Structures are given as structure tokens and as C-alpha cells.
């Protein structure tokens, strides 16, 4: 207040001065009032955001938890009949399918992605900067396009047909840029003094990279890989166009397989109420898996960082 009072030229007549001061103070009152209203609106926005998201989590847990029993995890799905409308069986085929898809996709994407990321971080060539733009664009591409790619290249062009390998290829294409970019970020944060110390000791550049740089960046690299896996596990669109589905336990690369997100997609539209309830269990398993994976990645990275500093 005093600053404002000082800034006002002081007129001789007291009445004018009081009038100006009143004006200034009422202006301040208005500013404070506007500020209060806007901050309340921000609070309202926070509540508006929280309502649907908290409701979603609550409904997911309350409807999903009751579905999780031994049958759910170990039995094959059954088509319900009029006489036994609640016999929907389990989803063991989708669990096995999702595990197979994720493992194959990780085997394809993690080595490629990590090495590409190391290259992006350590090279200053024109090719590296072009590749970075490509990786960033690919990382944001809609996942349905990965499905179309898996379909055109693996299913049609190589004539493999609908199979686990086609689905995991689509997922690997989805994971690759994510892993490459997070690896690049992790490798870039390794202090150059470490690199220089290694080189000064006479180590070959590849020794420095493999024995010094990558080990010190490992927490960031693993975090990136875990987040990519978490994303791949829940993706529906790429597997929808490539894996073929099925109702038996299959896991070999050339077999058509089922997947958890796929079973949610088809089960939600089922006309049997028991199947529409069962999908909440699958959704809960997926969300729990994704949460555990990203939380552990986060905690591990934080702990590693604390130890380093």
C-alpha cells in the first residue's frame, strides 16, 4: 500500500487527496476480490477434475475386485448359455497372450531402443538429429497406426498371418521411440567428467560407454523401459488388428493369441451381463499392473538418484 501511496502525486487540498486514496483503496479491494474469485474457480476446477477420475478408480476397484478369484486367473473362457448364464470361465488365455506379447515386444524393442538412445546421446551428427525428430514424432503417433503397420508388414507382406509375433512387432514399434528417447535423456545427464576420467585412464571409447556411462545412467534407462512396457501392456488398438484372438492357451510366436485389453474390448459389448461384469476384473488387473510398474520405476529411480548424489 505504501508504495502506491508514495507514487501518487500529493495534491494540496485534503479532500482531493482523500478522494484519490479512496479510489486507490477501492481498486485494491476489487483486485483482492477478483483474485479470490479466480482462485476459488481454480479450486472448483481441481474438484471437477477429481470427481470423474476418483469415481473411475472407486468403481474400478469395487466392481473389479469381486471378479478376481482362482477361476479368473486359471480357467479358459466359456460362452455362457441360457441355462447357465453366469458360467463365463476365466481369462487365462488372455493373461498368457498378454505375457507372451509383452515378452516378445520387449525382446525386440529394449536392445534396439537402448542402443539407439545411446547413439542419440553420444553423436552430434546430422543423422542423429534427424533420428531424434523421427523418434519424437513416432513416440506421439496414434497406436492404431502401429496396428496398421503390423498388419501390412507382418500379416500381409510377410504373410505370417494373425499371430503373436505380428502383435508384438506392433507393440515393439510403439515401445522403441519411448525407450530410445528416455535412454538418450538418461545418458545425457551422466556428467562429462566421468567420461573424460575414463578416457584419460586410457580406456577405449566403447569401454567407457559400456562400463562407465551406461552403468551410471542405468536407473534412467530401466525407468524408461518399464514405462514403455507399462504402455504396451495396456494398448488395445495395435493388438486388435494383428493378434487374431482365440479361446485357448497359446503363446508361441506364430500362434494367434488373445490379450487382456482385447478381451475388455469384446467383453464390454457382450450381451451377457456376467461377461460385462468380468471385464471390470480384467481392467483392474491391467490398471494395478500399470500402477505397480510405474510406481516401482519411480521409486527405484528416486532411490538410485539419492544414492548417487
Amino acid at each position: 500500500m505504501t508504495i502506491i501511496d508514495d507514487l501518487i502525486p500529493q495534491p494540496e487540498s485534503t479532500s482531493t487527496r482523500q478522494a484519490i486514496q479512496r479510489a486507490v483503496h477501492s481498486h485494491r479491494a476489487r483486485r483482492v476480490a477478483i483474485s479470490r474469485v479466480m482462485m476459488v474457480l481454480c479450486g472448483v476446477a481441481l474438484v471437477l477434475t477429481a470427481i470423474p477420475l476418483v469415481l473411475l478408480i472407486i468403481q474400478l476397484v469395487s466392481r473389479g475386485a469381486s471378479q478376481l478369484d482362482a477361476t479368473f486367473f486359471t480357467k479358459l473362457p466359456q460362452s455362457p448359455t441360457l441355462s447357465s448364464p453366469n458360467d463365463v470361465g476365466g481369462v487365462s488365455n488372455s493373461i498368457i497372450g498378454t505375457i507372451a506379447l509383452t515378452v516378445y515386444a520387449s525382446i525386440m524393442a529394449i536392445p534396439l531402443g537402448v542402443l539407439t538412445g545411446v547413439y542419440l546421446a553420444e553423436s552430434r551428427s546430422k543423422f542423429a538429429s534427424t533420428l531424434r525428430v523421427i523418434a519424437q514424432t513416432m513416440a506421439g503417433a496414434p497406436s492404431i497406426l502401429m496396428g496398421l503397420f503390423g498388419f501390412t508388414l507382418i500379416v500381409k507382406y510377410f504373410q505370417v498371418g494373425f499371430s503373436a509375433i505380428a502383435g508384438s512387432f506392433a507393440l515393439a514399434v510403439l515401445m522403441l521411440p519411448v525407450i530410445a528417447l528416455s535412454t538418450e535423456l538418461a545418458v545425457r545427464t551422466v556428467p562429462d567428467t566421468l567420461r573424460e576420467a575414463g578416457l584419460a585412464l586410457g580406456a577405449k571409447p566403447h569401454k567407457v560407454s559400456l562400463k562407465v556411462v551406461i552403468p551410471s545412467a542405468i536407473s534412467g534407462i530401466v525407468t524408461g523401459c518399464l514405462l514403455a512396457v507399462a504402455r504396451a501392456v495396456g494398448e488395445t488398438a495395435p493388438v486388435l488388428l494383428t493378434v487374431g484372438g482365440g479361446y485357448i492357451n497359446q503363446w508361441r510366436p506364430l500362434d494367434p493369441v488373445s490379450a487382456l485389453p482385447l478381451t475388455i474390448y469384446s467383453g464390454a459389448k457382450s450381451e451377457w451381463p456376467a461377461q460385462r461384469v468380468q471385464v471390470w476384473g480384467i481392467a483392474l488387473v491391467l490398471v494395478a499392473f500399470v500402477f505397480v510398474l510405474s510406481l516401482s520405476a519411480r521409486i527405484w529411480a528416486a532411490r538410485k538418484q539419492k544414492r548417487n548424489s
Partner: protein
Amino acid sequence: MTMSSPDLIIQSEELAEVNSASSSRGWYHWLLVSVSALFALVSIAFVGSIVIYSLPAWSHTGTLLTGNGWQSPSGPFGGLSMIVGTIETSLIALVVAAVVGLGTSLAIVFLVPGRLRNIISTFVELLAAIPSIVYGLWGFLVLAPWMLKSFDPFVNKLPFASAIFGSPGQQFGPSLLLAAIVLSVMILPTFIAISREVIAGVPNDIIEASYSLGCTRWQVIRQVVLPTAKIGLFGATFLSLARATGETVAVALVAGSVANAQFHLLYPGTSIAAWIATEFGEAQGNEISALMALGVLLMLINFSFSLISRSLVSRQRKALARV
């Protein structure tokens, strides 16, 4: 972000070159280069294969872009309702998510006390990682029945509602409006996660300087924080828009999968990505290439959004580095 200074990188690479002078580059370098080349090759094949398989459909470009109605299996294949559906749903979702999300981010940074702030931020980032099929499931099995029971009759009583929402008495569970709502709930965590980071990244000294000049909290936000964070916020907006336009299964579940759209919000419709997912299972021959052509459209839309958002975010980084 801690970036090593460019000079240091140059120095260490020069050292590296001196070190390996005898064997010029070494196997490790060539391993990295060839793996990266493989990555580039995969990316080129990604764009190329979708474009090549879509080629037959471009002989009917006019129908594909402006025709209404999708007659499988032989055509004509009109993409109008998918294009309009994509624009309608993602624009509504974006406006809702940007307004509510910006308020939420400001509330998280300026209203919520420290310890709780970290918990909320982590929770928001976790929510952003929830698979989109779960949002779709929730919209389909929880929101759709609720809208059918409570929301639609209410809206139909409003005057002039029919112009926007559809004629009175038209009641569907799945609709474009429901798709827009589910999309906005889905992209909210993404938008908040980025915009909170951008807002929290505004340097504290200029905020404190404005407080010391007698600014109220809203004046600080309005005149200092938002202008400084502006470009980054636009970046967050385009990233959310890219996510909304590319969303597939959630929209396929809640939009109703109708290709002969009336474009009113309470009627069922579809989007480009959702329609590819819905039709692909039974598609043959020409229809596959028409769906691939829709994929090319989606790719063009998405790539242009991510180009814009990336250049905006990097401009924001530079601007903040100067402050």
C-alpha cells in the same frame, strides 16, 4: 533438465577420436550406427507400408474426403462422418480439458500445500498411464447408462437444444457427446501433468518480485505466470489434441460406431481411428485400402500436431533458459 554443455561433449569426443585413432572408429560405433539405421528403416517402413496399402483408395479421393456413408464391402467409402466426428469430439474434449486442466494445474501449484502437492502430482501422472480401454469401459458401462437415464431427458427439455444435440426424443447411450466427455476425462491427466510442470517451471524470483510489488495472487498468475508459461501451455494443448484425435478403442466403445452421421451431439457417430478399429475385422480388398487411407489422414493430422507442439515446447525451454 540438466544438459551437459556442448563444449564438453565436443572435447570428450575429440579425446575419443585421439584415443581410437589407430582403428578409426571401432566396432562399437558401427554397432550404434547400424542399430540406429535399423530404427530409421523401421520408421520409414511404418509410413511407407501404410501409404502403399492405401494407394488404391486415393482414386476416389473426393468420396473419401467428403462422402457421407460407408457401404461395405464394395463402397462407396465416404470419410466425412469420421473426419467431422474426429474434429467434433476432440475439439470439445480439448476445450473442456484445457480450461478445467489449466485451473487444476494452477490450483495444484498455487493452492495445494507442499506435501499434498507431490502426492497429487504423482497421482495425476499415474492416471495418465491408465490404458485408454479402461476409460472407454467406464464410459460405456457407467456413463452411457447414466446419460440415457438422467442427462438426455434433461437436455431434451431445454429450448433450442435440438439444434445442437439432436431432435427431442432422440435418446442413445453412446453418442458423440459421450465420446467427447470420455475423451476429456482421458486427456485431463495428460494435460495437467505437462501444464503443471510448465507452470511450476516459471522462475520463483519473478513471482516473488511481483508479490513484492503488491500484486494479488491472481495478478501474479495472470500477468507473470501465464505469459511466461504460454508457449509451453500451447505445447501441452497440442499434445493433448494429438492424443484425443488418435484415440481408438475408447471412442469405438462410446461413440456408437455409426458412419452415417447426423453430426448432432446426442446422435451416435464415430472417429477416424475408431472406425478403422471397428471395420477392420471384416474388411476385404478395397475396404482395407480405404481404411488405410483414413490411417494416412490420421497420420497427417497427428504428425502436424506433434511437429507444432514440439517446436512450441522447445521454444518455451529456450525462453525459460533466458529468464
